[in-house]
């Protein structure tokens, strides 16, 4: 039985072959085998999609004239449809990404459904203002949609990332040209079918599977796209910003990489800290922008912490994503697997102590053993570069001032955490860390109500929460001459 229903390009609520006729393959990373071929979008397809999105956004269109509450209804309907098909979607997600099925089902699918429902609720609550301006004038603001939004999503959480992008964009009334990652196009394309089933007008959402340097670049530099949102590596984030500057100054939001510090004080709840630090770096095979990949442990508990972390890492079950006892699946691709192994080598070469793991297990698929390094020094590559794999770095610190400085000594600033039972330490450290999200006595506690994004080179702008709507809104001020103004 063929598991994949949608392998074409989605434009105007219809399925299209690529203009060039080209296709690309997507693989099951647990086995290395091809799942299927998918139509490959390039510049010509992006042009078609932008035209459809532009048309759907024109004044007087069905989408522009629709009640805001009705936009919300459609998003809510979409959430219900995702919920209806969640078993299938979780299966497809695990097949294409390698993440454990139970994770896909209980974490990714729930995150997707909740995000769509959350933004469904905002649609008719996006308020402008009436303003007490000086002079005989009546002033108000309209919070309008920006227009055609290009959205480029990554492969680590395909469905969730799609929801994070579509939710606010559609809630605010924009139209979308979305490119899923070439490694993981399948669940995103299925969402296209649900968008049509939910009743979104044609052209409001268009989905173009393809590669970054071709389809992605075409989106970033398109003169007919008003805004681009990208989640991925900092390296490509820079290219997106450059392309926007060189073309039409389209608005840019970026969610990029991280090298997030996780600070464990001696007075922390020890068991909690060990487990949270473990999950914080190993979750999703280490493929999280928020991975707590620099664990700073206060000297008095350092030795014990390393010992217990190694013990925990050794117990981590790696295997077939569809086995319910599996905690960790493969990396998403051969390329990612090589990269992780190369960085592990650098750790060994630069003198960090390899406590466990360190290589690929002898099996099909792109697996990497859960790996722990201790005695990591701040200058080492494994302490500076984003590994995006199941590799835990543990370092030692003495004082609170020292660890704050070391934690902030990075070009990244996506997330951070502090484990302590002391109120003053928690308040001081959380205020001092240059990170978009700071967790206290927890890690990766993410929810759609909370803004998320990076300081410094971890990104521009915030996604989720009410603030997330700002990135998809253009504010228009209207000032009208009045006779006889009154307060």
């Amino acid at each position: 039985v063929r598991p994949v229903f949608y392998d074409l390009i989605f434009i105007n609520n219809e399925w299209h072959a690529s203009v060039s006729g080209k296709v690309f393959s997507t693989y099951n990373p647990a086995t290395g085998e091809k799942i299927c071929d998918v139509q490959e979008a390039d510049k010509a397809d992006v042009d078609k999609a932008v035209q459809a999105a532009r048309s759907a956004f024109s004044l007087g269109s069905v989408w522009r004239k629709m009640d805001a509450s009705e936009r919300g209804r459609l998003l809510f309907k979409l959430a219900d449809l995702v919920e209806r098909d969640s078993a299938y979607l979780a299966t497809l997600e695990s097949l294409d990404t390698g993440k454990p099925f139970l994770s896909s089902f209980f974490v990714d699918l729930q995150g997707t459904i909740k995000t769509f429902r959350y933004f469904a609720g905002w649609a008719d609550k996006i308020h402008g203002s009436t303003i007490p301006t000086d002079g005989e004038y009546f002033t108000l603001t309209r919070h309008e949609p920006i227009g055609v939004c290009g959205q480029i999503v990554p492969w680590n959480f395909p469905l969730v990332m799609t929801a994070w992008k579509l939710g606010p964009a559609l809630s605010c009334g924009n139209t979308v040209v979305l490119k899923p990652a070439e490694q993981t196009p399948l669940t995103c394309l299925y969402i296209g079918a649900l968008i049509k089933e939910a009743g979104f007008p044609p052209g409001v959402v268009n989905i173009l599977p393809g590669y970054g340097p071709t389809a992605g670049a075409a989106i970033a530099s398109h003169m007919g796209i008003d805004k681009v949102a990208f989640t991925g590596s900092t390296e490509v984030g820079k290219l997106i910003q450059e392309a926007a500057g060189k073309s039409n100054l389209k608005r840019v939001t970026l969610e990029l990489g991280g090298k997030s510090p996780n600070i464990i004080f001696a007075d922390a709840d020890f068991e909690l800290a060990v487990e949270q630090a473990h999950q914080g770096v190993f979750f999703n095979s280490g493929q999280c922008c928020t991975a707590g990949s620099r664990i700073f442990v206060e000297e008095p508990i350092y030795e014990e912490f390393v010992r217990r972390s190694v013990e925990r890492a050794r117990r981590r079950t790696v295997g077939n994503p569809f086995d319910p006892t599996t905690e960790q699946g493969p990396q998403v691709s051969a390329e990612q697997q090589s990269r992780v192994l190369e960085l592990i080598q650098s750790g060994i070469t630069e003198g960090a102590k390899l406590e466990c793991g360190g290589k690929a297990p002898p099996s099909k698929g792109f697996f990497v053993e859960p790996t722990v390094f201790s005695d990591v020094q701040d200058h080492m590559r494994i302490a500076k570069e984003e590994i995006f794999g199941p590799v835990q770095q543990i370092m030692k610190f003495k004082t609170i001032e020292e660890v704050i400085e070391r934690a902030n000594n990075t070009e990244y600033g996506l997330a951070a955490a502090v484990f302590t039972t002391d109120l003053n330490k928690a308040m001081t450290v959380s205020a001092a860390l240059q990170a978009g999200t700071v967790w206290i006595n927890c890690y990766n506690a993410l929810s759609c109500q909370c803004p998320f994004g990076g300081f410094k080179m971890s990104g521009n702008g915030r996604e989720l929460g009410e603030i997330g709507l700002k990135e998809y809104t253009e504010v228009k001020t209207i000032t009208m001459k009045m006779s006889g103004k009154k307060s």
Partner: protein
Amino acid sequence: IACQCVSFSLQIFINNEWHDAVNKKTFPTINPATGEVICHVAEGDKADVEKAVKAAKDAFKLGSPWRRMDASDRGLLLSRLADCIERDAAYLAELETLDNGKPYAVSYSVDVPMVVKCLRYYAGWADKWEGKTIPIDGDYFCYTRHEPIGVCGQIIPWNFPLLMQAWKLGPALATGNTVVMKVAEQTPLTALYVASLIKEVGFPAGVVNIVPGMGPSAGAAIASHMDVDKVAFTGSTEVGHLIMKASSTSNLKKVTLELGGKSPNIILSDADMEEAVEQSHFALFFNQGQCCCAGSRTYVQESIYDEFVERSVERAKKRIVGDPFNFNTEQGPQVDEEQFQKILGYISSGKREGAKLMCGGGPAADRGYFIQPTIFGDVKDDMTIAREEIFGPVMQILKFKSLDEVIERANDSKYGLAAAVFTKNIDKAHYISNGLRAGTVWINCYDVFGVQAPFGGYKASGIGRELGEYGLDNYTEVKTVTIKVPQKNS
């Protein structure tokens, strides 16, 4: 009446269970189209309110399922309630028409869909009602929490039973409160059906409790209960005073009120005549004239006055009064005998005080509480029919000359619920709407409601606003938390 698989009872709803009144009393509810008894319903009194408040208080305890529930899950429950009401729309519309007398076509296409939209709107707010973190002076970290108030008493009227229930439950439940609701004795049925849906979708026991009963007994018990933290009342200004008094002599519970109105509808000479006539007709006659915001003082500029009156009379004469279940019917009966007599009394006063009766003026049928669509012309500001809320199908048309004059006359009322202006001129539209002391001002339209837009009264028309984001304020206690920190940084 269509058969439903959900069982609902003509009893008091407490802790997701159905109870007889403690004293076993019941009261009849009447079909106003025929004057016949539909059925008997348990009559809640002080002792039943006592039970309900206890249940609501328990459901609100720290650590209870309701207090511990994710805000987004409260929203999901409200959403599912909306879905169930939508599912049972035909039945609910039928029951509403049977109990209230409004035309079925309106119950089905206006009341029920608005209920569904209201609940869905507030479902969306549940996890978006945010406090703030605040840059206070000194080495402190300061933030606010938006907490629910607690046990909220809600007393709703009979003119839009389902809709008024939704306007009350939506914001109260979205923000996490628990509720003791007294429904109007004239129209208890649809609210009790909704109670069964509340249980069906999974609200924890005690979160919503519904007590059918009379104002002076059950209503008064709620308004003066020491364990009710807030009371919201929609009804007459007269009773609004009593509610506020009861709060002040008991525990100073927070009070919000949606009361009466005598809303001015101002037609300028440059208005689109056809549109203005039709909208003004609708503004007064909708829902048998039983709207708190009815446009019951129609001020028409001198130069178009005669034509406006003539066309309004023509329109009123065409208004179809009859069986609410007939799809052609525009106007059903008034809700009960008491209202019926009161309205006829006002019509008499109009005639006595010298207003010119242009059409209608009496009962429209032998059975049921039907009144003819009635229009008075040459009405003067000091006449009883120009000052007091009639709440029936009786239209007052008055003449004016200038803008400043009509603004002053429009504002010369103890009420301030709504108002409207019909004009093509952008400057006049804003000049007048800025000058009117009314909670809602409509421009070139009337009775346009959106759950997104706040609604409420100036002056004796009420306290506070319902609907929109503003509606959440009434159901929130703001807690400021200030923490000492070793060193504050911006």
